[in-house]
């Protein structure tokens, strides 16, 4: 079954948003980790 590109993009948009949020959260957590052990 072929899904139209427009519908396909809408279907995957929430997954992409979560992935981007995870990427941002990772950087934020690493920043906090770096600051916590910086001397």
């Amino acid at each position: 079954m072929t899904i139209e590109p427009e519908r396909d993009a809408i279907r995957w948009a929430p997954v992409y948003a979560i992935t981007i949020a995870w990427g941002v959260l990772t950087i934020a957590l690493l920043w906090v980790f770096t600051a916590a052990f910086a001397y």
Partner: protein
Amino acid sequence: MHAIDWVLVVLLPALVIWDGVRRGAGAKDLEGFLLAGRNVRWWAIGLSVMATQASATTMISITGHGYEHGLRWLHVYLALPFAMVILCATIVPWFTRARVYTAYEYLEQRFDGTTRVLASVLFLISRGLAVGTALYAPSIVLDVVLGIPQSVAILAMGGISVAYTVFGGNAAVIFTDVKQMAVMFLAIGVSLWIVITRLPADVGLIDALSIAGASNRLEAIHVAPDIQHTLADKYNLVTALFAGLFFFLGYFGADQSQVQRYLAGKNVDHSRGSLLLSAFVKVPMQFAILLLGALIYVFCMFEDTPIFFRAEAMETAVAEAPAETRTRWEDLKSDFAAAHAQRREAALAFVAADGSPAGDAAVAALRAGNAQVAGIKSEAVKLHQAVTGSAGGDGDFIYPWFFLRMFPIGMLGLVVAAIFIAAMSSLDAQLNSLATSSVMDLWARRHKEVDPRRVVTLTRWATLFWGLFATVSAFYVASLGPMIEAVNIIGSMFYGSLFGVFLLGWLCPIARGAIGWLALAGGFACTMFTHFVINAKKIVIDGGEAYPVGFLWYNAIGCIGVVAIGFTLALVTRARRAA
């Protein structure tokens, strides 16, 4: 090693290979052999994608990198989740809908045959240059841990990998990789647990992290102060997010060794899911491996540590050297022992003083101790180079030194087996993709009427050829220095340009025909110019030498170069036609 460890070293890889070959045995037709029948689930491909990237080098070299430089290498991976989203929204559906066997086949549909051939040749060169490292890393372990000569190890590992890849094709590659990742996760977890529990009784995990932090080993995020530092310093946030983005777009979007994994998905959703698995797991996994290296650094402060981690080889080389060299070596060893003991006291004082007013002085004393030890170590590395003639330090020998001495029975066998399997699982994907691209992009496109079974046979022969090439080139890898960086520098010289031509096809609908390969060649020339002309001389930054442009930027330069040249050529062509 104990008999139980030997059983694990032999049994685990044998089990993994047997299962991989069993699953690939039914692949007789072209789609079955090259793409596992396009019928694999997302989690299996996802683990294979990770395993292809994570070779034995990941376990050995990155742990050593964590020991020597801390968490800074993590910057390389920060852009990965964002790159995966871009690829899932663009390239993955293009490839799956076009029903291609190779990434470069798509370029023939979009531009012309020459663009496809040029892209394939660039891939074959880049991957061919790096493929030997997958064999070299575990050969170190065999040499150090089991006493088997590196040459014998390289030949044995290469032979086994070639055999099951020739026999089982992509299905064997993917299902071998799945087990590899399971064993690898287990080995990382066990290693972390052992290093934490082996710390002195009065040094807890937080104390160890504090010592690592004060020793500049926990800087996971670094922001460069200006443009010169941003370009020259390889590991900083801006470079990671911008140049690193192009690196991963190129690696996962235009490197056949990765594309061939997710082309095996049951459908476009499974292919997407496989890439998104890496987006979520890769950074935490690399963090764990680098942290392991940083914690081994702290652990070594309290243990009797050799000045040079390949101590036996160094002793043998020095024994045959002139008397002056032997005296110098003995002096360095006694200086190191004294500095090491002094630093141990400084580390214990730091733990006792942490948070108190005396803390600043304790940090200064610890850092002075680190600098003194590093200075003596640097002299030892120079002496090693002078005596043996081999480049590089002993970074790749740190992790083997650690697990050989500290791991209990059973765990040692597990880690050694994990390194063997990691090596084979990375090599198999590279051989599989090199063979596929050689045959499909360079030969089969001109012989479309040929029986598919003949193409499968030819791909098997090509796998054998590339296996021999990898085995021979592995003997020369030692001269490259630290492997993990060498592999990524080679890749960065090609990935940006390769992805750039796909991006050009998307962004510029009027770019057609020969513009594809002209832009690709132009973008690659930009990268070569940066590497051989701009980076011909190192510059001094903060007292240390560095190349003016860090290697991750090659990806952005190549990609932007291709798109800019392609757009210019397309606009000029249209203007001339209009005139």
